[in-house]
Each structure stands twice: as structure tokens, then as C-alpha cells.
């Protein structure tokens, strides 16, 4: 690792002040950043440990929940209110990584984890526009089984690897940011960027901004929600495709629905087209399949991942059918 200095911040103001000295990175559980620093892909001169910032998980007056940026992934997954009101979030978290990593990983760090594209990691031999803008992308002509099918660009076809964020996207979660110019909020679905011609810019964050919390607005329909992850082995592997969904069915008709996809794009993919197509439709396998077809209509496969298009459609339909129980 390249030498760096270390400081622990006890509150957001202290973290922002430390950051002002430049070339710094915030440190959460370290499960992504320490690895990338060892590979010299990340090269901060200073690490600011923000694990002492708020890790509380608290109910809001209207029945939503605010999760501190430093809350560990395990703490979220095991929390009573999350399990009962937002079960898809517990399920998404326990589908990710390993128990040891979930004990370390923080909310903010999970949201900001970087892609697992093998060419991004191969600092010595591969070209990557995300590491070095303008260099080229070795994944496009390379082994791209794990890469994106939606929203990719000719500069980058990487995916965002988080499971948790797919559930957050389906839940209309809101990210709380704090910078030297003040506080602001951004919906999670608008927080990550598509790659375009600048795949190195992954989010809408401004330099030095901190994620202080994530809010889950109240969502009664989320009691009927789940997360399904399809991958190459039964556990401890990143998603090929994943689906987070919640649905409300009234008299056999879809009253409301939320769907988000993982493993398919540079960001957690909120399936807005499928959702719009389903509202007011009969809650049947036929409607679910039609909505999935619509969402994937613009999918563009690479040489090794054409299977993901059909897999995503089937997984969407299967998850919605399961959630519909006897109504479908």
C-alpha cells in the first residue's frame, strides 16, 4: 500500500474538516477500500475513519426509518422494524457477501462500493476507462459474463455489485449527504450514474461530501416484499441477476408495485417501465411476463452474457408470482 495518514472523526463536522486537507477518503468497514488500496487502485493520502459517526436505526414520526451511515449491514438485517416492515432489505443484505463482511460493512460503504469488474481490478495488465479515463475498456472484447445488459456505454459495461442498494432502490430510499456547503438529500435511484463517457464518475456526490444516513420512507406495501438473487454458487458470490420487489394486490388487480434489478447495470436498476405497465393490470403470470419483457426491451447483451436478458425476465416474473400468492 502507498503510505497514507489516518484520523478518526467523532462527528460529521470533524470528518468534513479533516477532508478539507485534500486527497482524502472516508473509511467505513474497509472491506472494499482497503482491498482497492492494496491493489493501488485507490491511492488516498489520508483516511478519515467515519465508523464513529451515527450508526443508529430509528423510526421516523410517519413510520419510516432512518439508518445511520455507519450502521453495519448485520445490524440493519437483524433489526426488528426492518424485518417486519421492509423484509426485502433484510433479505437483500443477507444474500450479500459473508457474515464476517456484513459485520464490518457500513451502510455508506455499501452504497459506495465499486464494481467487481475483473479488468478494473487488473491494475497491471488491463485497460479500464473507470481507472484511467480514455484508456479503453478491455471488458468489451473480453470475458464479460458478469457485465451489464442495461444502460451501458461504449466506454464501460461494468455493473454495480451491491445487493442492499437494489432493495433500497425498490423502497424509494433517500440518501442524506453533508458537505462543507451544507446538507442535501438525493433519492437513491438518482444517486448512482450510468457510465456514459465518464465511467470514473459513479455518483452525483460532490468532492468531500459524506453520506450521513439513508432514509426509508413509510411503505405499507413493503410488508409483502422479497429479494431473489441468482448466482453461480449457492452463497458468497455476486449476483448474475437479482430482483427486489414489493407488490400490493387488490381484488386480483395490481394496486401498486416496486421492482428493482441488480447485476444488470452500472447502478441499481429501478424497473420503472415494468412498474408503470403493471399498475391496474390483473395480477397474473401473463401480466408479469409482459411487464418484464417491456423492461428488458432495450437490453443489449455482450458476447458472454446474453443469458442475463432472459434470466432477468424470468426472475422478475417468478418473484412477482411468488409475492402474489393465491392472488395470481
Amino acid at each position, binding site marked *: 500500500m502507498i503510505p497514507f495518514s489516518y484520523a478518526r472523526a467523532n462527528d460529521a463536522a470533524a470528518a468534513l474538516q479533516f477532508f478539507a486537507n485534500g486527497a482524502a477518503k472516508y473509511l467505513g468497514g474497509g472491506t472494499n477500500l482497503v482491498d482497492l488500496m492494496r491493489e493501488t487502485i485507490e491511492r488516498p493520502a489520508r483516511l478519515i475513519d467515519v465508523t464513529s459517526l451515527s450508526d443508529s436505526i430509528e423510526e421516523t414520526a410517519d413510520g419510516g426509518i432512518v439508518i445511520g451511515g455507519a450502521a453495519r449491514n448485520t445490524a440493519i438485517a437483524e433489526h426488528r422494524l426492518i424485518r417486519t416492515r421492509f423484509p426485502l432489505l433484510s433479505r437483500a443484505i443477507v444474500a450479500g457477501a459473508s457474515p464476517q463482511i456484513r459485520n464490518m460493512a457500513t451502510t455508506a460503504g455499501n452504497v459506495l462500493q465499486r464494481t467487481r469488474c475483473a479488468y478494473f481490478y487488473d491494475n497491471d495488465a488491463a485497460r479500464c476507462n473507470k481507472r484511467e479515463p480514455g484508456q479503453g475498456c478491455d471488458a468489451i472484447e473480453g470475458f464479460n459474463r458478469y457485465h451489464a445488459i442495461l444502460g451501458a456505454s461504449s466506454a464501460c459495461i461494468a455493473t454495480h455489485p451491491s445487493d442492499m442498494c437494489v432493495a433500497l432502490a425498490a423502497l424509494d430510499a433517500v440518501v442524506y449527504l453533508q458537505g462543507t456547503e451544507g446538507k442535501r438529500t438525493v433519492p437513491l435511484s438518482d444517486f448512482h450514474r450510468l457510465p456514459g463517457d465518464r465511467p470514473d464518475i459513479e455518483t452525483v456526490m460532490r468532492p468531500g461530501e459524506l453520506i450521513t444516513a439513508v432514509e426509508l420512507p413509510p411503505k405499507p406495501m413493503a410488508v409483502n416484499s422479497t429479494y431473489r438473487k441468482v448466482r453461480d454458487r*449457492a452463497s458468497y458470490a455476486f449476483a448474475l441477476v437479482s430482483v427486489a420487489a414489493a407488490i400490493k394486490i387488490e381484488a386480483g388487480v395490481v394496486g401498486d408495485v416496486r421492482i428493482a434489478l441488480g447485476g444488470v447495470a452500472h447502478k441499481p436498476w429501478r424497473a420503472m417501465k415494468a412498474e408503470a405497465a403493471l399498475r391496474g393490470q390483473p395480477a397474473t403470470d401473463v401480466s408479469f411476463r409482459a411487464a418484464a419483457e417491456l423492461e428488458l426491451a432495450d437490453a443489449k447483451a455482450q458476447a458472454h452474457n446474453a443469458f442475463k436478458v432472459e434470466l432477468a425476465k424470468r426472475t422478475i416474473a417468478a418473484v412477482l408470482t411468488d409475492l402474489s400468492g393465491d392472488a395470481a
Partner: protein
Amino acid sequence: MTMTVNGNTVSIPNDPRVSLLDFLREHLHLSGTKKGCNQGACGACTVLVDGQRVLSCLTLAVQCSERDITTIEGLSSDGVLHPLQQAFIEHDGFQCGYCTPGQICSAIGMLEEMRRGVPSQLTGDLCAEVVAFDRDEVRERMSGNLCRCGAHNGIVDAIEDVFREAAE
């Protein structure tokens, strides 16, 4: 700045680049904790920090100020093995033994998580207070610890033998 390792207070190194794993092995010469991948993928470096299982290869030693670390060396007392160590011997829970310290520390952390009711991927009813203790649950909850020798059946046997009652 200090941390506690197996009951002893030790000073934290000045260089923040030192991982907890290298600190334990190279500085304190506690070589029981193993370095498999050094990138979070194998679980060989699992230790307990304040009772929680974590990966020491992705933890910086400086992050452990005021924390209480337990490694495989801290589990036996006066030459008497921890019951889980004994059970690994009885059930052939290893061949080469390289993954074993991580497996054992991980299983101890797992037991605490099961007692707390932490859900897993296999949990059916998320509202249930009690976690079922069966082989599939143990396999899923131990999936962060790889064994290159394939001793998993013996590992699950040993964990079941010692922890089944304690977990429920």
C-alpha cells in the same frame, strides 16, 4: 493507542498500513490466524473483535483502538482445548488445517449471531424470534469460510456436536 489481544494489552503500530492480520502474525507472532487470500474472499483470517467475527485482512490495526481481539490462541486455557477445538479433532474437521483457526473463530461468532436471532438467507419467517439450528443453516452461515481440502462435512459435524444445544 492500545488494543487487547487475548487478554493482553498491546500498543497499536504507528504505520496505519498494517492490517490487523499482519499485526497479529508479524508483530505479535500469533501465527495461528492465517492469511489465505488477503482480499476478503476465504475467511482464513477470521478473528473476533468485541465478540463479532470479522476479517482481519481487511481491518486496519489502527481501527482497533480500545477493541478486544480474540484469536485462535486465546481460546484454550491452561492447555485445555476449547470444546470446539476438541470436536474438530474428533470429527476430522480438517486435513491440512490451514483454514481451521478461521473456521473455529467464525463458528464462535456464528453461535452468538444465532442466539441473537440474526436472519440468514435460509430464514423462512423473518418475524420469528428463534433461529433453527440445522446443517443447512450451519453451512450457509459458515459459507464465508472456504476449505480447500473439502473438510466441510467434518466441520459441520463438529459445530453441530458442540453448539446444537447452545444455539437453541
